[in-house]
């Protein structure tokens, strides 16, 4: 009787310590679902979803506070990827958040720029360089096309332009056929 009580107590202590150690050493530091949702978002940080950036939106989705159809830059493909990840039904993009458009970048008309630095402060990815009372310019390769720099500009010197395509970025067109099959899984 005493031996079995002792044995079980000792075992309990050993396992308890083991579990405690494991809980400390293998602790998941952040929610892995948030990471995985964030990885599927386009990272434009444009805020069209109603959240201040892609990660906050990912957190909101993981907490079920936001729906998966609020990201216009991600478009239909993005919604489908999110639906796959979360095991939900894909749905069309919420028109309140905007429309899916081809990727654009912005361009500063340098002759009109007065060097107010407001756009630099607005750019979420530091893609605009310049200093007070000096001309600003956009690093096109870093621009995500979020257009957050447009509203603060006092002289409207920022234009939205399409991304230049050259032969290296050429894409095969989708074959044109009369049929549109739906795969029944």
């Amino acid at each position: 009787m005493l031996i079995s009580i002792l044995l079980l107590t000792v075992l309990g202590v050993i396992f308890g310590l083991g579990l405690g150690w494991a809980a400390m050493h293998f602790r998941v530091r952040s929610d892995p679902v948030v990471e995985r949702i964030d990885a599927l978002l386009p990272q434009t940080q444009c805020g069209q979803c109603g959240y201040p950036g892609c990660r906050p939106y990912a957190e909101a989705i993981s907490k079920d506070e936001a729906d998966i159809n609020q990201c216009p830059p991600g478009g239909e493909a993005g919604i489908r990827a999110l639906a796959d990840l979360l095991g939900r039904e894909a749905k069309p993009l919420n028109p309140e958040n905007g429309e899916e458009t081809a990727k654009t970048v912005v361009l500063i008309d340098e002759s009109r720029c007065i060097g107010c630095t407001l756009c630099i402060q607005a750019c979420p990815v530091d893609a605009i360089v310049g200093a007070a009372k000096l001309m600003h310019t956009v690093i096109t390769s870093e621009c995500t096309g979020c257009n957050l720099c447009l509203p603060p500009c006092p002289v409207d010197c920022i234009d939205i332009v399409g991304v230049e395509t050259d032969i290296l970025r050429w894409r095969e067109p989708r074959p044109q056929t009369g049929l549109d099959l739906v795969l029944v899984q």
Partner: protein
Amino acid sequence: MTSARRIEQAVDAGKHIHRFHGGLRLRHNKRISCQLAVERPPLPELLVVPLFQHAGDIAKPLVRVGDQVLKGQQIGQSQPCAAVHAPVSGIVEFIEDRPMSHPSGQAGPCVVIRADGREQWVALKPISDWRTASADSLITQLQECGLAGLGGAVFPTHAKARDGRERNIHTLILNGVECEPYISCDEMLMREQPGKIILGARILRRVLGAGRVVIAIEDQMGAVKEALTRAAERTDCENISVIKVPKVYPEGGERQLIQVLTGLEVPAGGRPSDLGMVCQNVATAAAVADAVVEGKPLIERYITVTGNGISQPRNFQALLGTSFSHLVEACGGYQDDVARLVVGGPMMGYPVATDETPVVKRSNCVLALTTQDIAEPQPEMPCIRCGECARVCPATLLPQQLHLQIRNGLWEPAEEYGLTACIECGCCDHVCPSHIPLVEWFRYGKSEQRRRALENEASDKARKRFEDREARLLKIKQERAEKMTRRKKMLKDKAFQQDRIRASIDRAKNKNNTDQNTSEADSIVGNPDDA
């Protein structure tokens, strides 16, 4: 059994022992273009040299409009890739976007040279003795001479050689299997210049440090085997053998050829060098001989001009930049009912919109098809799951599955089903009873996959920049808050206040003293008028 041993077996047998999955037996249609000896066409007046000729980047032009260039002078450079050279001596008339023989049909940057007819060569820098030269100097020579795979993939030869050198290569395979119908430029080259091919093979073998050279040709190629064997015997070189393989399309594919020779498959995503082999086209080997022994850059290539739409089909040794129309004119012009111009063969070639398109390093054939040749486009029908496409697929894929996955945007499953392993040979297209343009779908799928990969890269970069910025803003905010609290604390501290007041009084006193001193000094030095 190792791959080296398997190659030995095939060489001992003198023929192929293995086969690859699927494939098609197609009508050859090669003889019509093999009737006349290969000649150079008359010198064209204007040559259009595209700056984008290799797998890789667009080259930067090294010349300006109005410059005088010499034949063989380098006019384009892009660091990891091979160089682009002027095919004639003359004057650069334009550097502008022109049609440039690309599947997209898009225009791209080209250097347009007006030939002056003097054919004045730039000072060539041949390697005096390739047998003693270091492998590195040979590889550099290949890069400077703009060598690229002439079989169609235009992968820079120097990069392939360097990669092969770093791995343990036992066999160099020269690919003379020109399996696509109509094309005969490699066959003509092997007939007419076997010595040069053997020389190039020996140079490449030395660069790679390989022991054996195997030249694979098609069994229909008649006298080619004797020509090559004789040329090899003349050099007294050992371990150069010619193996005939049966004509099954697409046997000229590098992976299919290796499977036929060894029975081994190159692993998916891998390269032949994983099996200790390197594959080069026979035309590349001939160009290597020119580049090393004579120092001549790659400025001309053999090209077949054929098809029922051509009066006298034949092969040319054409300068890069010659327009197709010039070649056709040298063939006696078009037949009346020519309907389509294709670059490459009927299976893997792509149509071009204009015959102003220039010859580039990758162009092996210009095929003019008449209205009779072109099948009436059939209406596409739903897939009936007959499995014919899977039966003929040389990469042992399931085209019917891949097609549905791509059509429905299921990219991950498509990747798992081996979309990247598709060689776009067109066998599945050819046999599909529902006339589904399968290869078009696979090309589209591959290009979408590349786009997705690029987008992921871009979004990762944007995330990193966003996070860095957030961290920086947070740091600035924290620093400001710290400064504020420090100041507040100072203001509250009585003793500290006293100290500061005392310090400022001292400072003021000191200043007064020094002011007096300086004013005294001023008056001493003073203005002479005052005194």
